């Protein structure tokens, strides 16, 4: 072996390359294979276990062999930047987004990974639950912020219904709108919204007042009974305030 200035670093890169991809990258010289096998297994099992825990639904859609091939492909192609274990799931999503190349994957895979990640991400989010009660006032006249603990997610596939026996092959006719929130008991709740309610929430979090948001929707829908829409909006907003999904902005 040569003794160039940083030969030990070359040895390190070779060692790590072999752990990532044992079939293609030779192990460092003069190491008993059963000793390298311990490292290969430790690293693979560790990452495999983390991904299994983070993505139980995705795991259930793969066979043992195809899943192991997926984990191996992740180790080969993706270089994780995060030092934090809870963020490995995010690294896996980045891998699916830009490094995964497989025609056999279901079309909803990236969206399902996102959906499975959301629950973990929200459960450890650093924001504290907050509620801003409504005084004796009309909620349509107020301005709002969306709670950092309430996320509006729009998917092409009904990710919340996917299982081994229910795997859509084409996107839904209408977008699937899910409101995910962490309540004051630290529980994660998923609420399915129709597209009009989702639009209302979106407009409110963009800074429109309740009244402006309702009028925007009435105009867009060419709705014949504006009062019905306003009444519906008022009920939704009051409910969202009560659940801490909307926070009243009082400047």
């Amino acid at each position: 072996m040569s003794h160039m200035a940083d030969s030990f670093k070359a040895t390190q890169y070779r060692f790590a390359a072999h752990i990532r991809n044992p079939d293609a990258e030779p192990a460092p010289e003069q190491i008993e294979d059963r000793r390298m096998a311990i490292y290969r297994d430790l690293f693979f099992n560790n990452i495999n276990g983390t991904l299994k825990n983070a993505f139980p639904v995705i795991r259930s859609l793969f066979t043992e062999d195809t899943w192991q091939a997926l984990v191996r492909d992740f180790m080969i192609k993706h270089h994780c930047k995060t030092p934090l274990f809870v963020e490995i799931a995010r690294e896996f999503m980045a891998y699916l987004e830009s490094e995964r190349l497989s025609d056999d994957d279901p079309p909803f895979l990236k969206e399902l990974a996102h959906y499975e990640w959301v629950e973990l991400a929200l459960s450890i989010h650093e924001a504290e639950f907050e509620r801003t009660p409504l005084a004796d006032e009309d909620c349509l006249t107020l301005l709002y912020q969306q709670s950092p603990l309430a996320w509006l997610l729009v998917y092409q596939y009904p990710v919340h219904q996917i299982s081994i026996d229910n795997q859509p092959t084409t996107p839904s006719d209408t977008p699937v709108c899910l409101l995910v929130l962490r309540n004051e008991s630290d529980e994660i709740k998923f609420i399915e919204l129709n597209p009009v309610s989702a639009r209302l929430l979106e407009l409110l979090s963009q800074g429109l007042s309740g009244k402006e948001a309702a009028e925007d929707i009435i105009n867009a829908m060419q709705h014949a009974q504006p009062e019905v829409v306003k009444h519906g909006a008022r009920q939704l907003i009051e409910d969202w305030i009560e659940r801490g999904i909307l926070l009243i902005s009082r400047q």
Partner: protein
Amino acid sequence: MSSKTFPVNGAGLGLRRSFIDELAAMDNTGIDFLEVAPENWMEMGGAFGRKFTAMAERYPMLCHGLSLSIGSPAPLDEPFLQRLKKFFDKHNIRCYSEHLSYCSDDGHLYDLMPIPFTEEAVHYVADRIKRVQSILERRLVIENVSYYAAPGQEMDELSFIRAIVEEADCDLLLDVNNVFVNSVNHRYDPLDYIKALPRGRIAYLHIAGHYNEAEDLIVDTHGADVIDPVWDLLAQTYQHHGVIPTLLERDFNIPSLPQLLEEVGTIHRYQQQSQLQHVSHG
């Protein structure tokens, strides 16, 4: 007796999520301090964040890092060190230890690889430890790791670790179980190894169980009860270096909390016995 001041005293336990609620509900645990992997708890809100804060207020807390990758061929992650520093300050962390190892090439692999035992690696790692100490404004404590292979080896493990702590002027976390595992896997005398470590630099000890892959090859899983030869080695460590704060690590196959507390109690007993011996001889 040594006049060294330790970051904590007595016997501690590695804190795991699986028993945090049970531990929080107990009054008399016999635990003197706790330890966590910062990478599992930092920047964490919600229920777990709150539970951790409560434990850090109640027990002296140590951090035992996993992702610093002090021996990595890739540059040090300095923004990560700044994040660690914030976490340590926020929770009054008594001491930060890391593995004398590396866990990344140009990306993280989340487990421990053996640094080649070479002269160049000694200087390289010592420089990085100094940099870490200057950013964190605290001493880094490095741990002897279990290793199953020694790629590119030019010196023995003991010389390697001694040279690094000396050159970097850092402290040492002596993992007694790792010494035992390595002594079998690499055929050396575990007590000779322990005796040769600089007493004044040892900040605390780790003790754990492991798994026997074969008679001459042991895997350090932290997934089993502590075995008798390791308890003996702990007793001999106390005998030689004096009583040192000791933490029980258990990462897999975690038994019931009462069982873990019993093992913590065993550490206490060894510490008391050793103190009595020192008194009677002293």
